């Protein structure tokens, strides 16, 4: 059995205890809501996209340490990136979570930084949904923002 320390790495607990970019953005920023049907968690992502660049991002909602810290780290990583860069970044993350779509190329040279700490989640397959909740919600918000 994988050890619990593989899951609850210090950087993950740090983002859980002190989430970054928690809050809301007012319209015209757009928002998307995601649910984890397994545990009832929900997350809302607020996205301010202008000229193809993510100017600001915030999140709200309730969730476990994995979903909250994963979303917190995600917001730090994507702020200031172009929409294309963010999409490639999400693909890289989902590839690490063993959820890559085979049809879409993954740029393995993308450095996930602190987010690499979430790799341990793969050893706890039930929790992969927790780790990806914020990311899938982000993709929905991006689609909305670039309509």
């Amino acid at each position, binding site marked *: *059995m994988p050890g619990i320390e593989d899951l*609850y790495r210090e950087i993950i*607990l740090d983002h859980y205890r002190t989430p970054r970019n928690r809050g809301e953005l007012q319209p015209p920023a757009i928002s998307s809501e995601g649910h984890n049907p397994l*545990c*009832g*968690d929900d997350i809302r992502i607020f996205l301010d996209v202008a000229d193809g660049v993510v100017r600001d991002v915030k999140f709200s909602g309730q969730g*476990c*340490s*994995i979903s909250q810290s994963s979303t917190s780290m995600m917001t730090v990583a994507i702020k200031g990136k172009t929409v294309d860069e963010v999409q490639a970044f999400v693909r890289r993350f989902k590839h690490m979570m063993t959820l890559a779509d085979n049809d879409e190329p993954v740029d393995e040279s993308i450095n996930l930084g602190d987010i690499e700490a979430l790799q341990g989640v793969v050893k706890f397959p039930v*929790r992969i949904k927790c780790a990806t909740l914020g990311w899938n919600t982000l993709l929905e918000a991006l689609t909305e923002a670039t309509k």
Partner: protein
Amino acid sequence: MTSAHRDFDSMAIRRDFPILSTQINGKPLVYLDSANTSQKPNIVIDTMSEFMRKTYAPINRSAYTLAANATELYEGARNAVAKFINANSSQEIVFTKNATEALNLLVNSWGRANLKTGDAVLLTHMEHHANIVPWQMLQQERGIELRWVPLTSDYQLDLTSLETLLTGVKVFSFTSMSNVLGTINPVEKLCAAAHAAGAIAIVDACQSVPHTHTDVRVLGADFVTFSSHKMCGPSGLGVLWGRKELLEAMPPFLGGGNMISDVRLDGFTCAELPAKFEAGTPAIAEVVGLGAAVNYLNDFGMTSIRQHEIAISGYVIEKFADRFGDDITIHGPRNPELRGATFSFAFRGIHPHDLSQVLDQSNVCVRAGHHCAKPLMKIIGANATARASFYLYNTTADVDALADALDSASDIF
């Protein structure tokens, strides 16, 4: 009901369940998820295995001896289930895929035949999704009105406005025991109130039939649904009991083989009960297994099982209070007599998903989540809870193991 002839000896009972002596990573299993699904005693495993080795054959269809023997065992199990809940006749016992399907059968068959636009259905705030969503599906199609019995602050149904809520209602469908709160509802009283208002009463008894003595005639219900897998039987099997005259008046649910007495190019005629509601090949070995589970529970008598669980509940409440005080919140009644041994709780602000993950390090198996009762979760103000549920094979040592494991969760978060 068969009279009990086995003493309630916890250690002997534990030996009946082989999974309880398996170890994961060299540590014993502490199984506290029986409200979700129960473990299986040797007698159920062996009966199903023997049946498949020696007697398995189609039922109700063939003249050969093997098929006749299989049919006898299958129908014998139906008789055992009928006696277990004191049904008037085994014709009133319908086997379904699970309890969820039994409720869907009622909504689709009885509901479609009897409810029209504007008709009202009364549910409660403590229902499982299985007793909400099928009604909402009918509501979308037919515009029926759904009403709800609210909760009191001490996790009981608030019955102060029951009479008003029941006015004009055609059916009152409610749980006998909350799978989240553990609250045991006053089923007899609710059935009587429904009837006084001219409504029929449907009881989702999934959480009570495995744990307490159930006499459908005393309850006064019109329909009762429950599942095999929560009462030591196999999964893939649910039970619908209904009053014969109501079942006879209802149109069939699923169409196909077994449920007909005649099929012509211009139509069909339904079979007699209960075949009318058992289209297709049923879960044959599972039904035989459920028969063995019923006999196993009867060996102790449901009254002793209930007494054991009251004692366990008392111990849980005391242990939690002594050890954790205000750090733990039980979402449910504090009086063991008013509840089943199913405890949803919040602990030191740790998310239930994280809590169950840490408990798993000690092989303590608890459910974390919304327990398929999202409207109720919203009302009690929690997205999710951890839930420990106990059965006849659990002991106070399991409660101690849970408390120890909870302490270790505090070390991480």
